[in-house]
């Protein structure tokens, strides 16, 4: 495949007022295009006492921008056959527009309105505040979200960007005013520290030209920086959260982990895939579900972000089985750390991860997601093409060492949320 048409190769263009421009060729035969702005606007940047600000701003981006009020924007998207979605994470705020490839330039200009000129109207703030309050209650009430929440709350110290889920609480949400939203937007939806990724049937020069025409005029060209208080690893501990009246107990075991830029990331990636990341091939699925018959879901994740990361093992089970499930999850974690993975298991997992890359290029949306990840982490343009070689270079010993470092069970927090029948020992 030549460089110009291989969606595994992304191209970095000239910056627009400090905004990094990235182009990815469309997958063969794709009728759609996709563009994403990712900026330093995650909830880790929430002003003190105003937790929830980043999520509110992010959600309000789709509530009217530039010449369009909320209804007009929604109609504009409907008529174009396009979709606008927003996402907020600890480190970043993201906006994606997906639509017909033939209209990509016009739709890119619409995305620029959304990113640069959102209305952030007071009426919409009232609505989003109401919705956020319900989500706060849901986070506390649902065993799965409650378990996640407690895991991060116990793992990270006060003021750490990963400590909360960004939903805030009733008091912090009440403090957010339209003026505060504008200020947050101005200082966090910036060109500096941000990327614009475009997957379109157009050369880089055309993407640069369109980006220059639409994406200039950011209020700030320097992105803010995050403060990361040191995470002091404590001893392994268990936190039970009794939620009566539910059917299932959600279990999480996890802790702090490595950043995406860590040189050991490929080995840590494979360690996680072996443990619980690679669905039915993973050890947790095979041991806890397939052999043990104890759970419907058992998996692990390694969320390696730009500045840091976390890992978590998760499973849901009936109240009568949770002790057994926790014991099995712990044993598998220990095995990862103590024993080298066999060459055959490593090969199976690795080739599975490599083999799925071409399938991810079936659609614009899937290919685009890969490009956004590469661009956000400032990885080289040919990173996806080199990914198979990076994985094939990893040795069994490195997987074990990565598991020990990136999924450190000795300092892990175990959370049980749900109808716990017996107090944990």
């Amino acid at each position: 495949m030549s460089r110009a048409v291989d969606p595994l190769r992304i191209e970095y263009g000239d910056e627009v007022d400090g905004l990094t421009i990235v182009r990815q060729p469309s997958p063969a035969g794709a009728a759609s295009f996709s563009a994403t702005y990712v900026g330093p606007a995650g909830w880790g940047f929430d002003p003190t006492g105003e937790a929830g600000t980043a999520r509110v701003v992010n959600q309000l981006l789709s509530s009217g921008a530039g010449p369009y009020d909320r209804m007009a924007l929604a109609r504009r998207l409907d008529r174009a056959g396009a979709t606008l979605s927003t996402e907020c994470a600890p480190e970043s705020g993201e906006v994606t527009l997906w639509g017909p490839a033939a209209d990509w330039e016009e739709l890119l200009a619409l995305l620029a309105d959304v990113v640069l000129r959102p209305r952030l109207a007071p009426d919409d703030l009232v609505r989003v505040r109401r919705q956020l309050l319900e989500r706060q209650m849901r986070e506390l009430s649902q065993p799965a979200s409650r378990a996640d929440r407690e895991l991060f709350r116990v793992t990270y110290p006060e003021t750490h960007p990963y400590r909360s889920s960004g939903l805030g609480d009733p008091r912090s949400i009440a403090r957010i005013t339209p003026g505060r939203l504008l200020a947050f937007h101005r200082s966090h939806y910036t060109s500096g520290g941000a990327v614009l990724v475009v997957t379109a049937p157009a050369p880089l020069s055309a993407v640069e030209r369109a980006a220059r025409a639409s994406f200039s005029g950011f209020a700030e060209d320097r992105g803010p920086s995050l403060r990361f208080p040191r995470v002091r690893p404590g001893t392994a501990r268990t936190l039970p959260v009794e939620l009566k009246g539910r059917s299932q107990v959600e279990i999480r075991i996890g802790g702090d982990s490595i950043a995406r830029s860590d040189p050991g990331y490929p080995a840590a990636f494979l360690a996680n895939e072996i443990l619980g990341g690679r669905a039915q091939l993973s050890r947790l699925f095979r041991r806890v579900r397939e052999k043990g018959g104890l759970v419907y879901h058992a998996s692990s994740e390694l969320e390696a972000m730009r500045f840091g990361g976390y890992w978590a093992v998760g499973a849901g089970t009936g109240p009568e089985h949770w002790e057994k499930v926790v014991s099995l999850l712990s044993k598998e974690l220990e095995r990862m750390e103590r024993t080298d993975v066999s060459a055959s298991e490593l090969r199976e997992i690795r080739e599975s991860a490599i083999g799925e890359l071409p399938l991810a290029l079936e659609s614009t949306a899937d290919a685009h997601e890969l490009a956004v990840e590469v661009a956000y982490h400032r990885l080289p343009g040919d990173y996806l093409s080199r990914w198979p070689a990076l994985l094939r270079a990893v040795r069994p010993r490195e997987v074990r060492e990565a598991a020990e470092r990136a999924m450190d069970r000795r300092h892990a927090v175990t959370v049980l949320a749900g109808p716990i029948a017996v107090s944990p020992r």
Partner: protein
Amino acid sequence: MWYRVGSKNEQPGITGASHWVEHMLFEGSPRYRKGEIDRAVLRVGGGLNAFTDTDFTAYFTTVPRDHLSVPLDFEADRMTRAAITDEEVARERTVIHSEREGNENWPEFRVEEELFQLAFRVHPYRWDALGRRRDIEQMTAEQLREYYRRFYGPKNAVLVVAGGFDARRTEAEVRRRFSKLPPWGEDVEVHDVEPAPQGERRSTLTGPGTTPYLQIGWRSPALTDPSTPATMILDTILGGESRVFSAGIGWRGRHEHPTARLYRALVEKGLAVRATSGWSPRFYPSLFTVQAQAARGVSLDRLERALESVIDRLARQGPTAREMSDVRTRIRRGAALAYEGATSVGFRIGYFSTLRSLVLEDQLYRRLLHVSAKGVQDQARSLFRPEARVVVRYEPTREAGDE
């Protein structure tokens, strides 16, 4: 591989059998021992899964084209010769139980299950595809094997292969594997006919949760009914989704639809934090639903009155010309983008071919674009009759730990 077998083919005592068989079909067959199907697909970078619906069960696999023979092999192998052993059934029972328990943690699942149970007294749509708790606990391995022997076979199956391959060679490969299978598969038609509803039915559930939740359903036409396009447009106008089918994947959509009537009347006005409609066309008459989650401090009585008023207005006045024009544009533009990639195309072909035929899809698109505002209004009047209404309310209780 799509089977025209779903929870509609079950009966009390073995509800959830189709879903359970779905799990068992990954547990081994003569050529593929337990776990080997997953391994054969995943190790080449593919993906596979399955899901069970009321009307069908779909097993789907995506692999690089050089490995097409792998899914053809195991689908043929497990179609009539899956190993449903006592031991594996016993082990899978707790897995399925756990799957159901995970769903029960969500009030929305409990409400919808209650809604269909209340709406249907004769037809098998009255239970969820997961099956009733008691049946999951008591169904025997022999009952499962009997169910599998009765319904699973070439007569009730549709094999869909989509993507880049040599059609002639692939057809020969398919014939080689499937033509010698026994022509099994009992009739999957459901002969129980649900009587017309004679009055409103309602129920209230309580349990852990956040704010009150409400779902209302009305008896709706089957997929093949001539009124289906008008019902789809009603769903788009009320809830905002512009989907033609919901076979595991839908059309790409925003989480919120500010142009939809329910959103404007309930979410914008501060009565609800979420509000939408839902209609999955099924083989037999089913339910058209609307649902809303109350904003804090809003009672279910108030929420229900507001929902009803949206429905009444649509039935009395019909859609506006602008709404009709917007819906048509969305359908036309959305159709061009809805299916990128072999997996999506496979779903689409599988869904329509299993429920009726691919021709139906073309017919639906054509008719969707020609439904008039009057046609939509007539359908709203015929659908939203008070005596056909089923209402389930959910009142959250505050439990320990909810803070």
